């Protein structure tokens, strides 16, 4: 695998040349400080750009072209890491070596650039029909999370925990925010994105990278160079313990226990935290939470333990009967206490470290994971897979105890099951 970054003044191209995969992947990423951008507008805009363009004025025409290009997959996404907001447009293509057409790679890149460079704008406004369809669709998506009890608990729990922080906010925005966005606003947002964002291009696959770079050079120009630092961690104030309980119409209760994290060292963040997470709740039913909640006490089917260090919190989510909430809490606390008191065998720690290293090999088989790892290494100094291999083996039980001391029990959010109970 050959890693190389090309600096083309207005933008950079991060590349990995490899013949490991049958597909290749190209992503154009705009990166902003989330505090300076309306995430709702940005999400609306990215949907508009991927829906129609000057050359392909309807979604249907755009999708016909994806099929003509041997079923390339066009995607868009808006996501956040710390204060970094990423607006990305990507194309998954067959490796050009499988295609006889001479200009296949160039045609694919031109197609992706068409979406970015030639939006469906007339007289300083986005196309009315595309706008109406997208607006309706996003307004419906706003409430879709309420259909799943786990998502409902998580979204509302985060809103309760972080009422004034970006960590508690959904990028999609609210119905009122979406309603207030005009076609003109979206044009302003479009120019804002092109002019004031970092622009990074990610390419991985069996591609002649120099040729690919020359295609971009010929067809894509971004005048401004951005240099501001955008933090990758949102440091939220540690809140007092409290409990919030809400009613629902679902069959099952969701117990969501939050923990807030103090600032971690880079060593703790990248190497200790993944091992801690495994021992606590990610070791295939042999971790502490699964062992106590499911294995020994039959309280639940799933217990999900997640760490979101860029937002400095961790969450434990359990689906169970309401009558078992207190029992489950007792075992969650017991598990956490054992982490703090190093009640973990050296063998189990060693197993989890080995499993973590084995996972790295698995991640190396993932085309998207590979390019993301390289990209984040370049922009945020996150470790490369090689660095994990070198550092994970040195994690000790003392490191685990140190990390648990930096975790503080915070909000307990209960989404209570409904009273109705019937067999369908």
């Amino acid at each position: 695998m050959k890693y190389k970054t090309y600096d083309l003044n207005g933008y950079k191209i991060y590349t990995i040349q490899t013949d490991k995969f049958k597909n290749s992947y190209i992503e154009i990423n705009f990166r902003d400080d989330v505090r300076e951008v309306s995430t709702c507008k940005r999400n609306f805009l990215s949907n508009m750009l991927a829906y129609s363009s000057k050359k392909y004025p309807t979604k249907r025409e755009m999708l016909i072209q994806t099929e003509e290009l041997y079923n390339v997959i066009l995607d868009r996404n808006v996501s956040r890491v710390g204060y970094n907001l990423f607006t990305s447009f990507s194309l998954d293509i067959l490796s050009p070596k499988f295609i006889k057409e001479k200009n296949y790679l160039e045609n694919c890149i031109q197609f992706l650039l068409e979406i970015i460079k030639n939006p469906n704008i007339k007289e300083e406004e986005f196309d009315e029909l595309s706008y109406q369809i997208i607006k309706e669709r996003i307004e419906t998506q706003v409430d879709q999370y309420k259909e799943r009890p786990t998502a409902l608990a998580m979204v509302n729990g985060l809103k309760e925990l972080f009422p004034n922080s970006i960590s508690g906010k959904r990028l999609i925005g609210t119905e009122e925010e979406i309603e207030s966005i005009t076609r003109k606003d979206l044009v302003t947002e479009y120019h804002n994105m092109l002019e004031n964002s970092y622009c990074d291009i990610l390419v991985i696959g069996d591609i002649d990278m120099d040729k690919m770079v020359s295609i971009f050079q010929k067809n894509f120009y971004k005048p401004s160079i951005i240099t501001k630092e955008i933090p990758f961690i949102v440091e939220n104030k540690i809140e007092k313990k409290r409990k919030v309980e809400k009613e629902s119409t679902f069959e099952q209760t969701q117990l969501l226990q939050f923990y807030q994290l103090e600032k971690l060292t880079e060593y703790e963040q990248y190497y200790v935290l993944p091992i801690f997470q495994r021992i606590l709740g990610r070791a295939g039913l042999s971790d502490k939470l699964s062992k106590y909640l499911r294995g020994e006490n039959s309280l639940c089917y799933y217990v999900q333990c997640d760490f979101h260090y860029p937002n400095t919190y961790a969450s434990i989510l359990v689906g169970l009967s309401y009558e078992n909430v207190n029992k489950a809490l007792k075992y969650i606390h017991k598990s956490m206490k054992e982490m703090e008191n190093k009640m973990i065998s050296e063998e189990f720690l060693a197993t989890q470290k080995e499993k973590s290293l084995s996972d790295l090999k698995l991640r190396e088989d993932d085309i998207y994971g590979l390019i993301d790892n390289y990209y984040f290494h370049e922009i945020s100094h996150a470790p490369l897979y090689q660095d994990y291999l070198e550092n994970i083996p040195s994690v000790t039980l003392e490191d685990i105890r140190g990390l648990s001391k930096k975790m503080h029990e915070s909000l307990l959010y209960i989404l209570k099951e409904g009273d109705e109970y019937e067999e369908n």
Partner: protein
Amino acid sequence: MKKIKLKGLEEEIITDTCENGLSIYIWVNKKVNTFNGAYVVPCGSETVNFEIKKKKMHVPFGTAHFLEHILCKKEDGTSLLGDFNELGSYSNAATFADKTVFEFLGSNHLKENLELLLNSVQEKKFVKEHFESERGPILEEARMQKDNAGRLAHYEIQNCLFHNYPNRIQGLGTIKDIENMKLEDLETLYKSFYHPKNCFVIVTGNVNPLEVITVIKENQKKKHFEEFVEPKEEKYKEPKKVVTTFKELKANIEVPQVYISVKIPRKNFDIENDMLLLDMLNLILVSNFGTTSLFREKLFENNLALTIGSWAVQERDYLVLQVSARTKYPTELIPLLKDKMEHLELLESDIKRKVKSEIANLVLGYEDPESVKDNLAYLLIKYGKIIDNEKELLESIHLKSVQKVYEKMTMKEMNVFVLNPKKKTKE
């Protein structure tokens, strides 16, 4: 050891059989770091009525799934997943309608992973206490699934379409089934279907096929199995008519969902090849309701639908064509979808483009060990063999052949199912 060349894909499947009848299928990809191993049993959530030596047998719905859970427990009652974890591997088990799959995904200790997989499934000692302790998590799993609107819709539609098929009941069984399940039910299914002669092992990824075959054969040589009882699944008699033409239900959803399903007897069609027939039916549906259809575009433009999906599946002696949509206006949308189902269109340009896309998907499909394993398990259970000419089958599809299929598509037996929001979620 035999090699099955997959025509036009430059891929091959290596196959062998152990003395006790256990079949082995291997696909090698030296470019990846990982390997995937699966023990596949042709017994799933729909395996409830069967015959052994002319004796009728019955187990409750949910037995295969309960058995899958119990097989993932060790003799001391702890989870087997922990043992795979110690080898640095992921492991999982899943019960489908027609099969149960036990698997691991790893990058080290191939031999140990394979032996652990084989021994855990083949050397089971049933312990009453472990059986009882697993009832709680399974009941919670069932309650979790009752909160899944998609699943609710799926099983309700099966009940609207079929009178007798066992696909009408949730794979986990009802809450009552789980509460009343007996250990003997699990043992009955285990003894009947888990014989090596009835099962197969699939190994995909970065492996040496000779090593895989040697490890499996050596492992099997050490074991003794009772005689295979050759269970035969019950043949269900299913009337042509749907059970009901319309049904409405409420669920925890925010926007109504509409499903139009059509039941067509398989014997209506002259084509012998099931896979080719399904490919063509899906192609017809996707041309009319898929992302590049004009009809779909008009529905979106007029705000009559927010999403649309379509697919064709085979359920024993019948084919089911289905179109689903999320819509704020079900009353207006339903007649339009029904009308479109009854007046499907075929365009040569659409067919050519869709075939091209499907071929690209097929080529890309042989890359990731997990998806290849899934595909092989699907082919072996559904068709009883590896289909070596999937690409040729797709290439053989053209307007005339699709038209022939289209002419046999009778839309008479149709069901409309609507899922409506229960009430607004309290915040």
